[in-house]
């Protein structure tokens, strides 16, 4: 039973939420902020009433998708997840999700907390939530104005994870050397996931690699296979540290235009039917592996879990498609070079683009990252790019220096006008790929909901 302060915090948050609803706004963070202001221990108190405990999903890319996959999996297992679905992923987002799904006595109407957590906030939040399972998808350079250096961030996360109770299970990407070494204690319980298909990836390290050196001895890492940036089949020839054995692995990955299919193998030697996840991209295969790893940590049967994945529906701005005037808009959230390069692989042969760059806090105020992203590979194929956003002109310049001819680039400042222009340039039945940073995607979504093409995202 929550204490009096938690109850007051719960009530205050709920009232704030109702107030926002009445005025037609989505409350994905503010009610949580109110509750935490009243009671800083609010998330600790309320989450302790969850019978299956809490899982935190963090990492640079794939948090939202992995958490959503895991939500479907837990539901298929008959559990009721309390989930910060909208992607509001600081402590206030966790608090908002908890109070939205609690009654007025502060008792949760669910049995498992499923929280996507911002990687910079992870150390603080896990210390307060004491999760049963922590999933880390990957660590790439991202929003340098906020997260600063990746080595430092990885160290902070590793140090905090080492303070958690020994029962905690860490679900970690074996292919990412920065993530694979986050479990610092030798007695830590781990579930490692990775891709073991030899045909996936190349042999050349990418310019955006963030871990060219061994996390343990600092000698150069060597790669048998590079999948994306520093993710791949890595080892250190100096100290012998290498990719840990995978507990959940994809022995074969097939990628279609609208799906990805993985053949799974578990360390226990079981054989499973191939899982077809209805969203494309190698990175979504990784997200599926992360979700399956978490299912494994919760002792949810993999057969049940893979069935849930087969019916998965993508989240806000994660390869969501929207129909407008006979054209299909494919929304792709991009926020860092690794995510951009991964999205590039899915843009098709002659992409028509609507690209939007903002530099608000949630996007990262420093737009330098666009120069690390591989626009050079994209450039020769671009059919047309309509560009918008608070820093759209930086993006237009990036396209220019990547070699896209001037007549194929057009800057349109207004969100709605940009959408209309991009749509009008595409023939009927054609696809427009929308690449946008977080707040730019919110703006574009708002403009799209004005014309009735999508629902406001908090109703999602």
């Amino acid at each position, binding site marked *: 039973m929550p204490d009096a302060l938690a109850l007051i915090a719960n009530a205050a948050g709920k009232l704030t939420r109702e107030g926002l609803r009445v005025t037609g706004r989505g409350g994905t963070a503010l009610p949580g902020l109110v509750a935490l202001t009243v009671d800083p221990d609010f998330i600790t108190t309320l989450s302790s009433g969850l019978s299956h405990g809490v899982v935190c999903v963090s990492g640079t890319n794939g948090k939202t998708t992995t958490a959503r996959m895991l939500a479907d999996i837990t539901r298929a297992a008959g559990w009721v997840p309390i989930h910060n679905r909208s992607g509001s992923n600081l402590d206030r987002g966790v608090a908002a999700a908890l109070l939205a799904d609690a009654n007025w006595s502060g008792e949760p109407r669910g049995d498992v907390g499923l929280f996507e957590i911002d990687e910079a906030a992870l150390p603080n939040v896990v210390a307060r939530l004491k999760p049963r399972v922590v999933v880390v998808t990957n660590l790439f350079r991202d929003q340098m104005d906020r997260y*600063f250096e990746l080595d430092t961030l990885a160290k902070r996360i590793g140090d905090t994870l080492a303070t958690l109770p020994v029962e905690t299970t860490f679900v970690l990407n074996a292919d990412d050397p920065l993530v694979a070494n986050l479990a610092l204690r030798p007695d830590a319980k781990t579930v490692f996931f990775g891709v073991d298909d030899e045909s996936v990836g190349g042999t050349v390290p990418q*310019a955006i690699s963030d871990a060219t050196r061994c996390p343990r001895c600092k000698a150069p890492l060597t790669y048998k296979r590079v999948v994306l940036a520093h993710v791949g089949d890595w080892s250190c020839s100096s100290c012998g540290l290498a990719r840990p054995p995978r507990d959940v692995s994809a022995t074969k990955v097939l990628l279609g235009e609208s799906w990805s299919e993985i053949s799974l193998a578990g360390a226990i030697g079981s054989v499973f039917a191939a899982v077809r996840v209805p969203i494309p991209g190698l990175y979504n295969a990784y997200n599926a592996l992360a979700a399956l790893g978490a299912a494994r940590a919760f002792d949810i049967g993999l057969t049940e879990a893979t069935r849930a994945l087969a019916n998965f529906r993508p989240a806000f701005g994660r390869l969501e498609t929207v129909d407008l005037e006979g054209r299909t808009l494919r929304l792709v959230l991009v926020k860092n070079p690794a995510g951009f390069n991964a999205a590039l692989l899915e843009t098709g042969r002659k992409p028509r683009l609507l690209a939007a760059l903002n530099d608000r806090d949630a996007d990262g105020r420093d737009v*330098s990252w666009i*120069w690390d992203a591989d626009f050079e590979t994209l450039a020769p194929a671009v059919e047309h790019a309509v560009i918008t956003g608070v820093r759209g002109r930086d993006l237009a*310049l990036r396209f220019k220096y990547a070699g896209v001819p001037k007549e194929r680039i057009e800057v349109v400042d207004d969100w709605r006008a940009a959408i209309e222009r991009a749509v009008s340039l595409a023939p009927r039945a054609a696809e427009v790929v929308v690449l946008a940073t977080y707040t730019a995607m919110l703006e574009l979504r708002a403009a799209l909901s004005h014309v009735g093409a999508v629902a406001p995202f908090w109703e999602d």
Partner: protein
Amino acid sequence: MDLRIAHLYPDLMNIYGDRGNVIALSQRANWRGIDVEVRPFSVGEWADADWPDVWFFGGGQDQGQDIVGADLAGKNGAALKKSVEGGAAIFSVCGGYQLLGHEYVPETGPSIPGVGILDVTTRAGKTRFVGNLLVNAPDGYLIGFENHSGRTYLGSSAKPLGTVVVGNGNNGEDKTEGAVQGRVIGCYLHGSCLPKNPWLADRLLGWALARRHDDVKLGPLDDAAEKSARDQATEVARTRS
């Protein structure tokens, strides 16, 4: 005409999107019909330090910076100095800028020696300067984004690149940003810097080409997109800081 660009430690000093500077130098030469070759120079002895016309040296993580600092303390540091004496230009940003100075003085522990090509010294600061950086330089303004905790102070041989209008610059105290000494430039401007500040890119190109070519004249380019990006970024820096 041809141009040789050396990218210093691209595997270790590459974290803040500074690669755009190499792209800008290359493309602005390409667009003028100049042949460009870019070569990486990383840890390990450099075979041909006389090759480059211009070096680019970006910012990195602390770990990368330690490895690079150790590498530059040996033969490669001496080679870089010799290259500059032979007429090569350098454009450096953030960590690269700091390593070209005399030393970096951390809060505790012994100071880390730099190459000493620039007459500047950097001390660790308690807070980090993060934000848009607008600088007034004698030949035009410069716009970028700073993200550093080091405080850099100029000696008498180095001249500031410009005066800070918005942001902190070298040290947050004396309103200076960056340093120029001969054909060597250091600064805290990420962004990347050169695409949005094409006049500085062209100055570096002129210096670089002059090393092996006489009578270098760079024709004008259509910089409308550059100007437009500059204006938008400047507006953001002025109104949001």
